[in-house]
């Protein structure tokens, strides 16, 4: 579903992605972790073209990014992206947020889009917030709207970039619960997160990055209880401390 083959990327002189080779199978859930600045965001932002790669191949849903034949706008409709900062549209209500792309991109009739939008918002536990503006919602509620906004497009892939790290602790689990639900419906997911409970529960694999390279991959069980490298051990001891 997603395949990196020898992908490199630079920001000016900074080598942010170093020879990344990694693949995500359909219906697989992969968690990406690693220290700050290790390139996790950059890695998943490449998948939907928010960042472009310098060399190597990146094939998503059978289409090679950067190819002339690949229509990026079209490909993006198949990929949901959840941001750390939610990025809801502040001038639109929750329902308008989740129906915007279905109506304008998928060309679904408004009434139909609104019906499935309400259904999706209800599914993430926001049945009473259809007409609320983002500024009237808590962080956890906003992030759930953001997830519903992606799901309303019926994507094939969902990408999450630290979806809970901007949240107050008491709101983290309500968002993780929704994400677990998405995973249980067999969505292909790539999730940048340090939430080990989530990783253990739904991830098939954990990918550990450091300084732009994939240093270790393994099942959550292997990775968390028996990390193979010094760098992953050092990283885990840091996040386990709190």
């Amino acid at each position, binding site marked *: 579903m997603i395949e990196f083959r020898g992908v490199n990327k630079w920001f000016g002189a900074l080598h942010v992605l170093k020879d990344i080779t990694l693949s995500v199978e359909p219906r697989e859930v992969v968690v990406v972790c690693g220290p700050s600045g290790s390139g996790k965001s950059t890695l998943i932002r490449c998948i939907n073209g928010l960042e472009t790669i310098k060399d190597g191949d990146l094939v998503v849903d059978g289409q090679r990014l950067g190819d002339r034949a690949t229509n990026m706008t079209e490909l993006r*409709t198949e990929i949901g*992206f959840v*941001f750390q900062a939610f990025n809801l*549209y*502040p001038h639109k209500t929750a329902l308008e947020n989740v129906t915007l*792309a279905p109506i*304008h991109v998928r060309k679904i009739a408004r009434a139909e889009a609104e019906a499935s939008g309400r259904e999706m918002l209800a599914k993430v536990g926001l049945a009473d917030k259809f007409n609320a503006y*983002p500024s009237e919602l808590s962080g956890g509620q906003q992030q759930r709207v953001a997830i519903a906004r992606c799901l309303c*497009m019926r994507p094939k892939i969902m990408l999450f970039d630290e979806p809970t790290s901007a949240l107050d602790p008491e709101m983290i689990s309500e968002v993780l619960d929704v994400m677990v639900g998405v995973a249980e419906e067999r969505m292909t997911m790539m999730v940048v997160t340090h939430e080990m409970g989530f990783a253990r529960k739904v991830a098939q694999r954990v990918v550990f990055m450091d300084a732009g390279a994939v240093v270790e991959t393994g099942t959550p069980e292997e990775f968390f209880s028996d990390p193979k490298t010094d760098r992953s051990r050092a990283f885990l001891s840091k996040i386990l401390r709190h």
Partner: protein
Amino acid sequence: MIWFQLQSLMGSYPLALRGLGMTIALSGISLVLGTILGFAFGVLRTSGSRLLDSAIGLWVDLIRGTPFLVQIFLIFFILPELGVELDAFTAGIIALTNLAACFICEIVAAGIRSVPTGQVEAALASGLSQWQRMRQVVLPQAMRVSLPPLVGQYVLLIKDSSVVSAIGLTDLTRVGWLVVQRVPNGLLVFAIVGIGYFAVCYPLILLARRLERRMSAAHGEVQL
């Protein structure tokens, strides 16, 4: 004395109305056209093409850096030399539209640049086309920042329209000049001219203030 002057002023009221009408027509048409053009320029400036950005930027700087009177003369006297027949009204509309477009372009571009990149990324990630991103996500939020200065700019442009009297258009200012030749009381005549402009501008000034207050209440979008 004053009484006679007032009486003959009263007699000039059809002329005054014509002047007022001219000022309103000229500003109204130019502001509508200038707003459309200014929005188009503002959107183009921020569309990511360096070439377009610097070309428009240069033009805007050129217009902002030269007196409006000079621009009007250039249009009114140079274009006919090049074979373009122009009456004074058309020349005035062109000059004022261009001036308005340049100022409005900058206001709109600043508004667009103030929208956080995360908003564009979210729209991009959900597959909205460039125009849809602009129309549905960026512009409504940009308007929140742009609308109060935009209305403020309208006021300045209406006042700038007085410069077109220099090419013989009988607007409010020129009516003042004409009347003063009959009624030799410049203070009185131009006080009335001033009141005429104020009557047109004051509602806009109030609107701008109201919009500015509304901004904090709205959810990222200003409803009129």
